[in-house]
């Protein structure tokens, strides 16, 4: 049933938004529909597929398992915030170069999960990448090119430091 609206202040990709939302509004719907940031994809709405992954204060969360009100006062990064000044993030470049996506539906979630993974472990083994990405599902690629992309991105990021 409809519920009383609440005020939220959420910073997304560096921009602060003040909005009125129903307490039951999912963070994923808030991002996609209220802010028109359609890059966050919704694949299952029960926290398994990982397509809706975003970063909250630098850590991955499932935006389909959170209400927008729970992100009140927090900083969110979505896929739209990954490239800076028109320059792709090294992970995005690596996915492009290594055929790391086919249909692209799962890609935003993979990129943000990989961001956190490489932040925590800048020099992962292939096995560590596979385990690190096991919270994201892809149905097109068989994962191989995704794993190769993340390993390639790790190399790029090391070289740039």
């Amino acid at each position, binding site marked *: 049933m*409809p519920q009383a609206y609440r005020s939220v202040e959420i910073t997304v990709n560096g921009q602060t938004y003040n909005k009125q939302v129903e307490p039951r509004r999912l963070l994923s719907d808030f991002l996609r529909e209220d802010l028109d940031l359609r890059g966050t994809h919704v694949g299952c709405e*029960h926290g398994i597929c990982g397509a809706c992954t975003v970063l909250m204060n630098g850590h991955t969360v499932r935006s389909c398992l959170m209400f927008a009100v729970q992100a009140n006062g927090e900083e969110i990064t979505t896929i739209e915030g990954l490239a800076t000044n028109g320059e792709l993030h090294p992970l995005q470049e690596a996915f492009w170069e290594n*055929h790391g996506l086919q*249909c692209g*539906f799962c890609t935003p979630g993979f990129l943000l999960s990989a961001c956190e993974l490489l932040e925590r472990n800048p020099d992962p083994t292939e096995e560590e990448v596979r385990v690190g990405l096991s919270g994201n599902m892809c149905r097109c690629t068989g*994962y*191989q*090119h995704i794993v190769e992309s993340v390993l390639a991105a790790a190399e790029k990021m090391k070289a740039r430091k």
Partner: protein
Amino acid sequence: SYDTREAENHPGVIAVLTGEEVGQMSKPFPVGVTAAFKYYSAAVGKVRYVGEPVAVVVASDRYVAEDAMELIQVEYEALPPIVHCEAALEADAPLLHEELGDNIGCHRLLTYGDVDQAFEEADLVLKDRFVFPRYSSLPLETYAVIADFDSITGMFTVRSNFMGPFSMHAVAARALDVDENKLRFIVPSDIGGSFGIKSSIYPYIVLLSLASRKAGRPVKWIEDRQEHLMASSCQTDRVAYREVAVKNDGTLLGIKSKVIENVGAYLRAPEPACTFRPIGNFVGPYKVRNVQLDAYDVMTNKCPTGPNRGYGCQQIYFEQERMMDRIAEELKMDPIEVRMKNLIQAEDMPYTTPTGGIYDSGDYPKGMDLVVEMSQYTKLREQQKKARAEGRLFGIGIATGVDPSVSNMGYITIALPPEVRAQPGYLPKSGSAEWATISMNQRGKVSVTMATTPQGQGHETVVTQIVADELGLTPDDIAIVDEFDTSKHGWTISSGTYASRFASVGTSAAVLAARKLKGKIIHLAAALLSVPEEDLIIQGGKVFAKDDPEKSMTVKRVAGTAHWNHELLPDDVEAGLQARAVFRFPSNVAPDPQDRVNSSNTYGFMVEIAVVEVDPDSGQVKILDWFSVHDAGTIINPKIVEGQIYGGALHGIGGALFEELAYDDDGQFLTGSFMHYVCPTAVEAPKLTIGHICSPSPLTPLGSKGAGESSSETAPAAVAGAVADALGPLGIRINELPLNPKRVWTLIHESKTT
């Protein structure tokens, strides 16, 4: 009965459409079988599967619509369920569609060659029962439809992630009872995966079109994951009895197969194509000439089925390859040896199969040699010996198959008996075509419009490559339009991307269109340069005389003239520069009176070797290694093909090890979330060693064949073979999937207690 009043009065609700209204506002979907049952886009009078639409709530937003949905009161009277496909055939089975008198949607007994004689001549006859589960290649993006009915023009405009075949557009138009030109399908570029599943979105297109008509406004629906799992589409589950006639040297003489396919509550077009799509390649890569197929498509209280990656092939290759291993076991031959013994040879190409398939090219023994070499098969067997000595359950599985691409529309009419197909009023079906249009603007840049509704297969990349090569331009000069609109674009009734058709027929249309455009550029340049056409070549953005390169002009200048300066155009040259091409295969004919049909057009080949270890304590199967050899003819983009092989293999592996759309004995659906329907992640996905051989197709301009399904067809059999090999010492035979830990553990423990 249902009461929708409270929902209708709920604030924000615009309309509620009930199944009864659907029955009044639309016609049943047509389907290519003689069984006369009625299938509508929502349940009319009787609900036949969990997830069947009962009512549609149209509201201001999804949250409100879901609130209102809870307010609809539905009273169900429980009826006896039919869940298992063999139960549906029993004489006293409850009837799903009373008007039929049984639960059979389609039955055909097909006989090719002299099966009786083959079984008489056999030294050995083997028979087994096989069970193949219901799974889905399940795209991560669900169905989405925006339908808009215009009451003034009577036009339905539908935006959706429908993938074709566009023959289903006609099926939807018949249900809506409108002429096809009053039903406009718009498909945006970039569908989020499909693997066949989104061809079955059309009942929802009809349902939402009716909802829009009732609501008097556009209606949008995004399917949720639970709806997708329980009520979108999937492949059939089936039981098959396969009997083989074999000589002592391993020669396969004949096959008798009785198949019972569970197509769910309604046999939905293009079903029963699941049974007949692989008819031309039923024998796979083997020389056997005597085949009998006794095929039933039965209706039960499960979700209706439809195309799914591999469509029909993973089932037959599972049965076939399990049987090849059984033959090897009985005759104490190596599984490679028994397969080698029966392979069609390179010099037999093109090869006509007993069922009417015409294999266009291939060298199957070469492919088999390559996989043996790549996997170091002899060493693998030594490794196995060692592992077994240590008490480990280590297995090697082999599976091979012929990969059919570009379906001939005629194959589906095998569902009808020859006497029906021979009636004078009957319109025979045959063919498979694709369309492309290409235009060059006044600055020499090119746009190509395709009707291939890509779902992640990289069509833009491949068409760009092809057109740039044909026209001597760079990829930056080319733009591809793959958004698709039935009212604006050219298309054929077989358009779309399914049955691995793009690499064969889509690329061919693009090549032909580019060559036509090139011909027009040269024709015009010849007039402008006063050089005979045959002396001109196009390269690096220029047209020049091959013997006198000074005589040249840029392609841009030719294009500029065609668009801007008509004064210089010869009488036979149209203003502007564009070309359209439709590619079709001449080898496509309707089935003959003996039910033989070339069901596809180009035929690839694949062979897998899977290496696994089974943990006896948990029943878990671990893939240690995987080798996969392919022949997809000329490969246009190696990276894309590799991606397709990886993806296809994992669909097959997922189906063999984890994924199952399960029901209990009452027909209750058990796997409505990803916690219950378990898909492999990067951890479970094996790294493959991939090898290629290349037998170009003589039928396509580039020699290319489809590669999109390939390993999805053979991977389940390879996993089954490997697990069977691992558990062989325990006397366990594997004739049923999925091999999830529970099944494997149970098999191991039952073997210990007996």
